[in-house]
């Protein structure tokens, strides 16, 4: 059963987003508007360099738009603590996993939890539960170097869910995986979305990944060209 009710009210919305990098040479986004409802999955597709990752960074509060605004539950990000927003509301999944090499799988899952009020014992308990949910309990004490790429992405997903976010932002989460592992990861993301009522925005080159989403946003040259 969904923990968060699916409604048509957007939980995350970007209005007229523009991003020009400081050197002025790259106009990465040229007025993009996008919205995602609670529990919805949106795939952002398009050729390399079209601004997908920049859009994801703006939506995730990692960067500020040159113009336009991102709203979370109707609140503009420019008026809220973006660190707190990222820590509590957003889970990031990256193409290259970005696990800390010196920590074990279960310790990696605890890394975002340092920004919560949970005690070390509570953090460990929650991390153990998440590792089990992604089917990695048997590899919990292994360092990332001793995990397969699919296993690493499972741990990265558990880490993204560590602080119980409402939105999961995934940047090419299956880009480094073979097709079999890609299916596993997509199934896992789909299960979490359904069970936890997560909103999923996924940047991808893969048509299979995009096809699994509720909605596809196609971008080109910093603009949204098609929404389907």
């Amino acid at each position, binding site marked *: 059963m969904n923990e968060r009710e699916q409604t048509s009210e957007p939980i995350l919305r970007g209005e007229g987003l523009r991003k020009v990098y400081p050197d002025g040479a790259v106009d990465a986004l040229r007025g993009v508007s996008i919205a995602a409802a609670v529990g919805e999955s949106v795939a952002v597709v398009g050729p390399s360099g079209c601004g997908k990752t920049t859009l994801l960074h703006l939506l995730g509060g990692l*960067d500020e738009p040159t113009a336009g605004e991102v709203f979370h539950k109707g609140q503009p990000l420019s008026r809220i603590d973006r*660190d707190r927003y990222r820590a509590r509301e957003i889970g*990031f999944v990256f193409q*290259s996993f970005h696990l*800390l090499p010196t*920590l074990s799988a279960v310790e990696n899952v605890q890394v975002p939890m340092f*920004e919560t009020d949970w005690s070390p014992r509570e*953090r460990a308990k929650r991390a153990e539960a998440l590792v089990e949910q992604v089917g990695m309990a048997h590899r919990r004490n292994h360092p990332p170097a001793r995990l397969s790429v699919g296993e690493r992405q499972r741990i990265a997903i558990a880490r993204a869910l560590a602080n119980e976010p409402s939105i999961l932002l995934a940047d090419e989460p299956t880009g480094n995986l073979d097709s079999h592992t890609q299916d596993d990861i997509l199934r896992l993301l789909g299960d979490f979305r359904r069970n936890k009522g997560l909103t999923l925005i996924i940047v991808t080159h893969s048509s299979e990944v995009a096809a699994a989403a509720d909605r596809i946003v196609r971008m080109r040259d910093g603009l949204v060209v098609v929404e389907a």
Partner: protein
Amino acid sequence: MHFSTLIFRNLFRRRARTLLTAAGLAVAIAAVLDLVGVAWNFQRAFTSLYQGKGIDLIVARAGVANQLSSTLDQKLGERLRGFQGVADVAASMVDVVGFEEAHIAGALINGWESGSLLFRGTHVLEGRMFGPDEDKVAMLGRVLALNLGKTVGDTVGVAGEPFQVVAVHESDSLFESGGLIIPLKSLQHLMGREGQVTGFVIQAEPSDPKSVSDLQRRIESEIPGVAATQARDQVARDMQLRLAMVMAWSTTALAILLGSVGVLNTMLMTVFERTGEIGVLRALGWKRRRVMSMILGESLCLGVLGALIGMVLAFVGMRCILLMPTARGFIDPNIPGPVLGLGLLLGFVLSVLGGVYPAIRAAALDPSEALRHE
């Protein structure tokens, strides 16, 4: 997992670099501990030289840098005894002699009169004190006796003349334990300075600071060419001691500079190498403050590690210094507690100085930019 676990693991991600940086810090801290330790013990030995004997004033030739180069007429003692407020006066001659056969380049030799107040704080471990009419007899300090391998009844050559050892003594001051005491007349003869002394010590009565200051002023105004110094000021005025302290603190300043540059270099490299990782941590919601804490924490651990290794090196270094003939009997090999505390403080200061800028730089990284770096 505790936050500190993450810090320790990061620190040992590049073990060789961490250990080399800590070793660099350790050498700097050890040098400081040894130099400050030696100067500190020197000062303590010098202070106990007077305070342990209840001496209030030291009278020497005005304008001399230290008592060794002072010369006064021994008859001046009677004149000093006549001053109101003087309870006791003792004449003293002090010099330095070498014992080549034992590879001792210099040991303090004191010429004192039998029964003098200067014998206070001198504990005879073996044998007896010399009497008023004795000549060519010596009381060896414990450390010197050990270094020379001599004991009561043996003969020891002092400046080319044989002296019979009548006692082995221990003193509150290392200078005396590392040296020897012979009758004043014997030393005057040995040095060809009959009727002369290097100075006098005075016990005042009453001995409150005001009365001692008053006595000091009267002596200086009534006897031209002499300087009366209060015991507590004598230490501060000694040129060699001041030089030792200046050298120790100059080394400390240099160690702080070099050590903090070492830590700065290592931590900057760490931040540069881990730019992408810092971006990930910021993406995961870490606040700037937490990134700063992580980098500063790593830097502090480096400092503490360097300080601990530095303390061990300092102990080893002190033992090595004692292998040098010139140091025997003059250097107390123990590093005092407050000086060890200085080592820890130095480790802390160096790590903070070297870690602050990299920590600020890491915290200031734009997360999106840092992720692109990856």
